[in-house]
């Protein structure tokens, strides 16, 4: 006799980074988290029943990147040789999830995971979860403070809508952790989830450039892996292209444009990485400001010092796994918030289900 399994999906993807012990981030986050939940005592709480796919971290790939047709662009396969040394490989991922609604706002939780491989052993630090209560009243304050800490004087910007706050906070947290790691590591390979495309609200060009610069100054190399890309070359998706040699190799694009039409800016050189045999390959962005040889060496050091599953680095995979919220954790967080804040749980009728019965699928939002 088993209890019926509720259809709680895990949060899709999100990253957090964090560097080691000297990150100031957790303390700040605790403060923000507690401050945000101070005023919700005794409110009614509608736990989130179903979490459909919600992009908690806004990828620059998802923001339309108008990539120009460039027929002159050619491809070259660059075979790779793993470089075995003791280079530390670090990856960061963050997750966020909506856990419910109150009368005045939205309850969500954020968590980060940093995974690093040292001496053939993986270590993981999970930070959080940090629950937040975001309302129309406090969203400006929270967003402003987070942005201030993360981007340090990058200028005023409009506060996002309540719906987008969760994703924005997640992105800010990610940048924050990336900065922390860049500052605290030396001669390491730092893996980001996503691309090095800048020019969005959460990835201002100056901020991402600064992140890369800090990393470079400490002889770190940032490699960004995108699981999904919309970029196409001659009509073909970039990751569908294959090279002429056997893996591991990079596909290098000659005469690739540095700028896109619009405000987006490519801060990395774009490659297709096919690092193991198998069906998967990924878009790989390497800091544009470092030399081709240095970038190539970083990839080869990554190959020599990390494990790979379907061309994807294990550190990044673990970071994703350890940051992701499970449905069980969502229930635990709901319980924590309900107990801590004395919330009264209510179940609001699902209008879709009421109207459409079995056909009323999907979120109510």
């Amino acid at each position: 006799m088993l209890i019926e399994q509720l259809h709680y999906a895990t949060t899709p993807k999100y990253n957090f980074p964090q560097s080691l012990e000297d990150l100031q981030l957790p303390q700040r986050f605790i403060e923000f988290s507690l401050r945000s939940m101070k005023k919700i005592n005794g409110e009614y709480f509608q736990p989130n029943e179903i979490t459909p796919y919600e992009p908690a971290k806004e990828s620059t790939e998802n923001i339309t990147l108008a990539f120009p047709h460039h027929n002159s662009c050619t491809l070259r396969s660059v075979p790779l040789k793993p470089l075995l040394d003791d280079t530390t490989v670090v990856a960061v991922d963050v997750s966020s999830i909506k856990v419910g609604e109150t009368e005045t706002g939205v309850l969500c939780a954020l968590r980060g995971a940093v995974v690093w491989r040292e001496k053939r052993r993986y270590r993981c630090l999970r930070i959080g979860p940090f629950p937040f209560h975001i309302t129309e009243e406090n969203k400006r304050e929270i967003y402003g403070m987070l942005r201030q800490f993360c981007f340090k004087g990058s200028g005023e910007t409009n506060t996002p809508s309540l719906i987008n706050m969760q994703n924005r906070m997640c992105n800010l947290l990610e940048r924050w952790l990336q900065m922390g790691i860049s500052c605290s590591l030396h001669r390491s390979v730092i893996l980001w989830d996503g691309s090095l495309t800048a020019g969005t609200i959460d990835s201002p060009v100056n901020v991402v450039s600064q992140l890369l610069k800090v990393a470079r100054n400490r002889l770190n190399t940032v490699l960004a892996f995108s699981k999904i890309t919309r970029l196409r070359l001659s009509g073909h998706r970039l990751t569908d292209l294959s090279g002429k040699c056997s893996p591991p190799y990079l596909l290098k694009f000659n005469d690739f444009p540095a700028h896109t039409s619009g405000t987006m800016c490519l801060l990395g050189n774009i490659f297709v990485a096919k690092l193991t045999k198998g069906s998967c390959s990924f878009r790989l962005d390497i800091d544009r400001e470092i030399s081709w040889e240095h970038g190539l060496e970083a990839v080869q050091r990554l190959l020599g010092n990390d494990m790979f599953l379907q061309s994807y680095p294990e550190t990044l995979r673990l970071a994703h796994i350890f940051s992701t919220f499970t449905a069980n954790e969502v229930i635990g967080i709901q319980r924590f918030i309900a107990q801590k804040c004395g919330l009264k749980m209510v179940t609001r009728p699902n209008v879709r289900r009421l109207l459409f019965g079995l056909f009323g699928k999907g979120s109510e939002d």
Partner: protein
Amino acid sequence: MRLYRKEGNTVQILALPTENVEKGEYLLIEDPATRRSLITQVIDVQFANVPGILEELLRNSTTNDLVHEESFDPLGVISHVAYIQDSRLLVCKIRGTMEDGKLRVTASWLPSRSQSTIKKLPTTSLLTLAKISADLPIQLGETRELSQFNIDAQTLDGRLNIVTGKKETGKSHLSKLLVMGLIDHGAMVVVLDLNGEYTHLGFSSNGEKNEHFSKIQALTPGDNLKMTLPQMKLRVMLDILIHALHLPGTSAREFRRIWRFLQEQGTLTLHELGETIKNWKCNTHVRDALFSRYYSLLNSRFFTDNPADANGLEENFRKIRNGGALVINLHDISLVDRQVAVEYVLGKLVEMLTQWKIKAVFLFAEEAHLYLRETYWDDIVTRMRHFGVFTTFVTNQPNTIRENIYRQADNVFLFNFTNEHDLEVVSRAAKVDAETVKSVARDLPPRHCLVLGRAVKDFPVVVRVKALDVQAMGHTRLFFTEKN
């Protein structure tokens, strides 16, 4: 605890890890709106299938030698997650309904899922509610709440009982408690003691005589249980010859003639019987058959021609007419002799009961399949019960007792079984649903017993059987005794 689901007479209840509930315990589901309560018994405790648990466990399983994980959780949220992970699902069987302070066995209503409150129902409260009192108490042990648990000796009166469980779980211990409890209330008990375990019930563990000493008569066939042929009825003797010694029908008819002849002559002795068979005019094969049975009887040393040596069952019953036990020690005697003795005892019992020489007797039969002939089983649970033989079967091989016996059993004292086949057999007992038997009995600790049937008014109760200060016999002989 929250009511989660009801299907048939099964209720599922969600419980948090701090709400410590074990199999066999009773829960009361109170519905304030209808002012009724559902009495349920926990038959299984499972992990609640919390959504996402598989992902959680898989993720945590990666944190081994290869991955070292640390958590920074300043708000302590993870402890809540762990709490949810450990939440339980209590599978319960509905046992009755409480309405206006009265207990009813029916449960044709459904309590409110949102409004009902659930609390533990201590066994003592259950016994009070069910009006399970003990006018003639036999203390079996204690309940989970460490309160004394008694059954009423009257619930064994006129009943068929089964004590079963795997080896070394405490079956014999419980049956000794029952024997002594019955004796205390003046009952007459006969024990067919296969392993000689009951012979020293009259002695404390330190070897001193206890208060039951005078009430325990240990009788060993061929030793202090002997009789002369005139003390035997022909019918009993024929039962022995036919059923225990497998005498063919033709030979049995000749034996009947010889017996009557000797009776008429007034020379019914063992010696004369042998002489008469030798000289009897009959077929040689018949004579040989009679001779071989005669020597079997002779070798059993169960019969004597000296009236002074004779010590039959009837005389011993007189000694325990105010309550006591005749322990027929079947230990260390051959299978044939054992069967001869049992045929004699049962035949004699029926004879005495039909003649109202005794009122009724409680028969305890350990591993009865080793000495009870096939036709006796039905006889015991039907005909002999009407005469006043109230049997308690004690066995660790439940499949040796036939299904119809289980179905007619009034009380079952069930100890631990782990074997599925054994559980399947025992679950045929009509006094409780099969799921309860299988689930609860599987996890009973040693010396814990699930009491089913009339003794508990069909409310199954788990009891920790009390210790008994008697000299324990029947210990398994060990080779490495000294080392131990």
